[in-house]
C-alpha cells in the first residue's frame, strides 16, 4: 500500500514563484488559446456587469420614467447581449478546455519520453506508483490549473474589477465604501479555504489507511479466520473509521461554514448600500435602479470571491504537482552516449571485465575489482548467495549500470565507446519474472524483432517449445495475454519470453533466473529452447537449478561482490571450496522440492 501513501507526500517548496511561472509557460506555448480565453472571459465579465447595469436602466429609464419606448429599446439591447454572451461562453469553454487537454497531453508525452531515456538506477530508487501519479494525476492537476484555474482567476478578478468600475460610474461615494469591504472578503475567504484544505488532506490520509486495512483484511482473510481474530480486527478498524468520521465531519462542516461567513460579511455591504443609498435617495443623489444595481453587484461578488479562494487552494496543490513533474522532466539520464561513439555492427567477441568495480554508495561496494574474460560463444554460470552481486554483474553487462571504476570491454573496445542503443539492441535477456505486455501472443513475440514476419515468429516459437501450448489456446497466436500476461501461467510466459529472445537473435544472452519459477516438467520443455538460444552465443546464466549450472562451460562463484572461484563443474567439485558446499546443500534442497513435480511428471512413468 506504499503507493497510496506516496500520493499524500507533499512537496514543501521554496520556489513557488519560479515553479508557478514555469507552470504558466506550459500554457503560453499554445498562446492563441490562452489569449483567446483571456479575451472571452474578460468580455464575459464585462457583459455580466453590463446586464446588471441594463437592469438598472430598465427601472430608472423605463419604469420610473414611464417610458415604454425606452424600455423596449433597453430590452432589445439586453436580448442582443444575451446572444453575444452565449457566444463568448462558448468561446472560453472551447479555448480553456482545449488548452487544458493540450497541456496535459504535452506533459504526459514529455514525461513518458523522458522515462524511456532514464537509466535503470532511476527506476531502482523510484517506485512505479510514484511515477504513475506524476504522469496521470499530477499532469491533470497542472493542466487544469493552467486552463480552468487561470480562467477562473481571470474571471474573478475582471469581474470584481468591472463591477467596481460600474459602481463608480453609478455612484462613486458609495462605490468607495464597498471597495473597502472587498479586501476583507478576499482575505477571509482565502484563509478559510486554506484551513479547509488542511482538513481535506487529513481525510485523504485516513482514507488511504482505511483502504490499506480493507486490502489487508481481504488478502489475509484466511489467516484472520484461522486465528479467530474477527472481533479484535473490527475493533481496530472501528478506531480508523472513527478517526475518519471525525476528520470527514470536520472537513465537511468547515466547508459548510465557508459560504455563510462570506455571505454575512457581504450583507454588511448591502446594509451600507441601504443606509447610504437610502439617505442619498432622499437628498436626490441616487436612483432606485441604482440601489438595486449596487445590491446586485455586492451579492453577486460572492461568486468571484469564492472562485478566487478555490483557485488559490487548488493552486498550492497544483504547484506541488508541477514541481514533481518538473523534477522528473529535469532528471538527467545517468547513462548517455558520449560524443562520437561508434554504432557497432555486431557485439560478438570476447567480453573482458578489467578491474571493474561498482557501488551505489562509495563505502558499500557491490562489485569489487572484478577481472574476468569471457570468450565469444562461451556460457558462463554465475552462482552465489542472494545479494552477492550476480544480477548487478549482468546489469552491468547490459549497461543498465556503468562501472564506477575499471571497464568492461566488448569486441575489443570499452563498451562505452559503442552506442547504448547498439549494445542493448544486440543483447537478449530472459528474466526470472517474465514480463509480457497486454496484447496478443503474437504482439508479445514480435517485441523481439519488430519487422519479423508471422512465419519467422512461429518458427521462433517452435524452437522455444512454445508453439505447442500456443496452438492449444483458443485463438492461438491471436490470444490476448491479459494485463502483464496474467492470463498465462508463469511457465507459458517464460516460453514466450524465450521465443522472443530467439527472435531477436542477440549476440549476447543474459538469463537471470530464467527457469527458477517453473516446475520441473516445464523446465524440461524450456530446456530445449534454451539450448538452442545459447548455442554459439556468449551467455551469462544466473541459475539455482544445478542441471542448468552444470551445463555451463564455466562456473563463476560470486560472494560479497568478488569472484571467489572460477572453473568447470568438475574442477570446482574437486576443489571442495564454496561451490562444493553450495552444490551439496543445493542438491538436498532440490531433492526435497523436486518431489511434488516429480510425482506428476517423472514418477508416473516409473510406476507404469
Amino acid at each position, binding site marked *: 500500500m506504499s503507493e497510496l501513501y506516496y500520493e499524500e507526500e507533499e512537496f514543501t517548496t521554496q520556489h513557488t514563484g519560479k515553479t508557478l511561472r514555469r507552470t504558466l509557460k506550459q500554457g503560453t506555448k499554445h498562446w492563441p488559446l490562452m489569449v483567446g480565453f483571456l479575451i472571452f472571459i474578460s468580455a464575459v465579465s464585462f457583459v455580466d456587469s453590463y446586464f446588471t447595469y441594463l437592469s438598472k436602466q430598465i427601472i430608472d429609464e423605463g419604469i420610473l420614467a414611464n417610458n*415604454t419606448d425606452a424600455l423596449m429599446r433597453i430590452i432589445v439591447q439586453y436580448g442582443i447581449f444575451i446572444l453575444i454572451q*452565449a457566444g463568448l*461562453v462558448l468561446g472560453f469553454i472551447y479555448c480553456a478546455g482545449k488548452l487544458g487537454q493540450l497541456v496535459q497531453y504535452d506533459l504526459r508525452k514529455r514525461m513518458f519520453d523522458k522515462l524511456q531515456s532514464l537509466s535503470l538506477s532511476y527506476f531502482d530508487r523510484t517506485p512505479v506508483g510514484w511515477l504513475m501519479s506524476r504522469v496521470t494525476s499530477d499532469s491533470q492537476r497542472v493542466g487544469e490549473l493552467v486552463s480552468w484555474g487561470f480562467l477562473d482567476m481571470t474571471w474573478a478578478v475582471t469581474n470584481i474589477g468591472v463591477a467596481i468600475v460600474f459602481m463608480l460610474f453609478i455612484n462613486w461615494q458609495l462605490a468607495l465604501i464597498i471597495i473597502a469591504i472587498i479586501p476583507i472578503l478576499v482575505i477571509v475567504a482565502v484563509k478559510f479555504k486554506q484551513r479547509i484544505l488542511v482538513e481535506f488532506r487529513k481525510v485523504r490520509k485516513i482514507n488511504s489507511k482505511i483502504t490499506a486495512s480493507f486490502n489487508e483484511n481481504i488478502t489475509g482473510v484466511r489467516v484472520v479466520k484461522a486465528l479467530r481474530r474477527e472481533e479484535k480486527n473490527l475493533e481496530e478498524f472501528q478506531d480508523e473509521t472513527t478517526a475518519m468520521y471525525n476528520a470527514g465531519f470536520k472537513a465537511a462542516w468547515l466547508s459548510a461554514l465557508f459560504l455563510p461567513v462570506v455571505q454575512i460579511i457581504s450583507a454588511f455591504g448591502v446594509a451600507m448600500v441601504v443606509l447610504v443609498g*437610502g439617505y442619498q435617495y432622499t437628498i436626490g443623489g441616487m436612483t432606485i435602479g441604482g440601489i438595486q444595481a449596487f445590491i446586485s453587484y455586492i451579492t453577486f461578488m460572492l461568486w468571484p470571491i469564492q472562485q478566487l479562494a478555490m483557485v488559490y487552494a487548488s493552486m498550492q496543490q497544483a504547484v506541488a504537482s508541477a514541481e514533481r513533474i518538473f523534477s522528473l522532466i529535469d532528471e538527467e539520464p545517468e547513462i548517455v552516449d558520449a560524443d562520437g561513439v561508434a554504432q557497432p555492427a555486431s557485439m560478438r567477441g570476447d567480453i573482458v571485465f578489467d578491474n571493474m568495480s561498482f557501488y551505489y554508495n562509495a563505502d558499500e561496494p557491490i562489485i569489487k575489482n572484478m577481472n574476468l574474460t569471457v570468450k565469444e560463444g562461451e556460457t558462463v554460470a554465475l552462482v552465489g548467495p542472494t545479494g552477492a552481486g550476480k544480477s548487478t554483474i549482468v546489469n552491468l553487462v547490459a549497461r543498465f549500470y556503468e562501472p564506477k571504476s575499471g571497464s568492461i570491454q566488448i569486441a575489443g573496445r570499452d563498451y562505452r565507446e559503442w552506442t547504448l542503443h547498439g549494445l542493448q539492441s544486440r543483447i537478449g535477456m530472459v528474466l526470472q519474472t517474465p514480463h509480457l505486455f497486454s496484447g496478443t501472443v503474437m504482439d508479445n513475440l514480435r517485441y523481439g524483432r519488430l519487422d519479423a514476419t508471422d512465419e519467422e515468429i512461429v518458427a521462433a516459437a517452435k524452437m522455444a517449445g512454445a508453439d505447442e501450448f500456443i496452438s492449444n489456446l483458443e485463438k492461438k497466436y491471436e490470444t490476448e495475454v491479459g494485463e502483464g500476461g496474467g492470463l498465462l501461467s508463469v511457465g507459458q510466459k517464460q516460453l514466450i519470453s524465450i521465443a522472443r529472445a530467439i527472435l531477436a537473435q542477440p549476440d549476447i544472452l543474459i538469463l537471470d533466473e530464467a527457469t527458477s519459477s517453473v516446475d520441473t516438467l516445464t523446465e524440461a520443455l524450456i530446456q530445449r529452447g534454451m539450448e538452442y538460444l545459447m548455442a554459439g552465443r556468449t551467455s551469462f546464466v544466473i541459475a539455482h537449478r544445478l542441471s542448468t549450472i552444470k551445463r555451463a562451460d564455466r562456473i563463476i562463484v560470486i560472494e560479497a561482490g568478488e569472484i571467489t572461484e572460477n572453473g568447470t563443474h568438475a574442477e570446482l567439485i574437486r576443489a571442495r571450496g564454496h561451490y562444493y558446499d553450495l552444490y551439496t546443500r543445493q542438491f538436498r534442497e532440490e531433492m526435497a522440492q523436486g518431489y511434488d513435480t516429480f510425482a506428476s511428471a517423472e514418477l508416473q512413468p516409473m510406476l507404469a
Partner: protein
Amino acid sequence: MTEKTFDMRETIADNRLLGLWRMMTGYRALYLAAVVCIGLATVARSGIYFLLAYFVDDVLLAQSATVSVALVAAGFIVLAVLQGGFTFLGGRWAAKTSESIVRRLRDYLYDHVQRLSFTYHDKMQTGELLQRSTSDVDTLRRFYAEQTIGFGRITLMFAVNFTALLLLDVRLAFLSIIVIPIVIIISLFFFKKMYSVFEAFQQQEAVLSNTLQENLTGVRVVKAFARQAYESDKFEGDNIEKYRRGIKLTYMHAAYWPATDILCSLQMLFGFTVGALMTINGTISIGMYLAYMGLVVQIIWPIRGLGRLIAEMSTGFVAYHRIMEIMRVDREPLDEGSFAPVRPIQGALAFENVTFAYEGEEPVLHNISFAVESGQTVAFMGSTGSGKTSLMNLLPRFYNFQEGRILLDGKPLTDYPRGYLRQHIGIVQQEPFLFSRSIRDNITYGVDRHVTDDEVEAAAREAAVHDVIMSFPKGYDTMVGERGVTLSGGQKQRVTVARMLLKQPQILIFDDATSSVDTETEAVMRKAILEQNASRTTLVIAHRIQSVMSADQIFVLDKGRIVQRGTHRELVVEEGIYRNVYDLQARIEDELQRDLADAAVAAGKANGRNVNGQPDGSELSTGKLSLA
C-alpha cells in the same frame, strides 16, 4: 446508541430507493432537520427580496424618516445571518448524517467481509471486493452528503421562490417558468449523454495508465530490447486518444452551457419585460418588481444543474447495488453448534468416509477414513491436487463436507461451533501471510490474552527467527513491509510459526509450512513444537521423506483418496508411491554421493581422506541405511 443495534441486513432491498432509505435508519430525523434548515435558509433568502420591496415601496417612495432606513439595513444583516446560520446548520447536519451512515456501512462491510466463507473468498477477486468496499462506499457518501441534499436544495428553492412569485402575481409567476420543463429535459438528456462520453474518457485513462504501468514494470525488457522508440509510439497512440476524448467532452460542455444560457437568460428577460410593463400599468409596485428580479434568478439558474445531479445520483444507485451484492451473501456462523465443550479438546480425530467437493465442482476427497489418537503426529504426502490441503481445511470447518462424518474427541465436528474449533486448532499455512504492522504485533496476532515481551521473544527463539529479528535496527518493532526490511519466505514462515507457538493450540496443522525452510531449521522448529506440548495432535503436510518419516502414521494421498497408510518402516518396503518417492530421493542422493566420490578420488589422492569423513555428506546416507 441506535447505530449499534441496527441490523444492516435490513438495508438489503430489491428496490434501491427503499434500500437507500433504510440505510438512513437512525439518522432520518437529523437528515430531515438538515433539509428543513436548508428550506428555512431559502425562505430567509427570499425574505431579503421582500425586504428590498418594502424598502423601496414603503421607505424610499413613502419618503419616511432615516431611522427606518437604519432598521431596514439592520434587517438585511439579520436576514443574512439567518440565511447563513440555517445554511450552515443544514450543511453540518447533512455532513453528520452522511458521515455517520457511511461509518456504519464501512464497519459493517469490514466485519462482513471477514466473516464470509472461504468458498466466497475463493471466487471473489480481491481488487473487486476492495473497490466495492472503498470507492463504492465513497460514492454512497457523496450520494447522501451532496446529491440528495443538492436535490433537496434545488427542489426547495423552486418551491419557496415560486410560492413567493405566486404571492407577487400569479400570472407573472407562471410566465416566468415556461422554459423550465425544456431546460430540465435538455439537461437530463445532456448529462445522460455526457455520462457515456465521460465514461469513455475514463476508460481511455485506464488504458493509458495500463500502458504506462506495463512500460514501467517492464523497464528492463524495454531496455533489453532497446524498444524505447516503439514504446513512445505506443504511448503516443493512447495519449492522443485520451486528448481526443477530452476534447469531445469539452465540445459537449461548449454546446450545453451557452445553449441553456440563452434559454434561461431569454426567459428572464421575458419576465423582466412583462414585469416592467405590469409595473408601468400599476399592476405591481416598483418594489415588488425589484423583488421579482431577484427571485426569478433563484428559480431559473439552479435548474440547469439538475441533470448533472440526477446523473450523479444514478452512480449512487449503482454503488448501492454493488455493495448489496456483497451484503446479501450469508456470513459464516461462528458460534452455531449445539455442543458446549466442558473440558478442553483432547485432539482425537476420526474421519469416517468423508467425501468433499468444492461448491459446484467434482469431489476432491473420496471416502476418506482414518483415525488419529490424541498426541499423535501424522503426516500426509501426495502430489499437488491430491487433496491434502482440502482435507486440512475441513478441520476448522472452513468448508462443509458433503458425506461421511468427522469426529473430534468422539463428537461430530459439526456440533462444535466454528469459532471454538478455530481457537483450538492452529494452522501454519503454506503461504506465510504477515500483516503490515510490527513483527511483535504479527507474533501476538492470534492471541487474546496479554503477552509479555519475554514470551514473544521465547516464541521467536523457538521458531529460530529471534536472531534475524534482532538484526533489524528496530528489532521487534520493525514494521513488516517497511522499506529496506525484507523478510525471506523462510523467515516469514518462521514468524508465523512463532505466532502459532504463542497460540498453543491443541491441534496443530502444518500445511507444507516448512518447504521454504532448510532442513536444519526445520528440525529446530519441529523440536520446539514437540517440546512445547507433547499431548498435542499434529498434522503435517510435507514432501521430504525426512520430514515425515518420524510420524506415527503416514498417509499417502492420490487424486483425493488415501492410497497408502502406515509408518515409514512399513511403507518403505511396500510397493507404491511412498517407496517411489523414497527411491527417487535416494537416487538423487546416490547421484550426489557419486559426484562427490568422483571429486574425492581426485582430492583423496592429494590428502588421503575418505569421502564419508565429510560429516555433511554422510549424515543422510547413514540415516538411510539404518532405516532401510
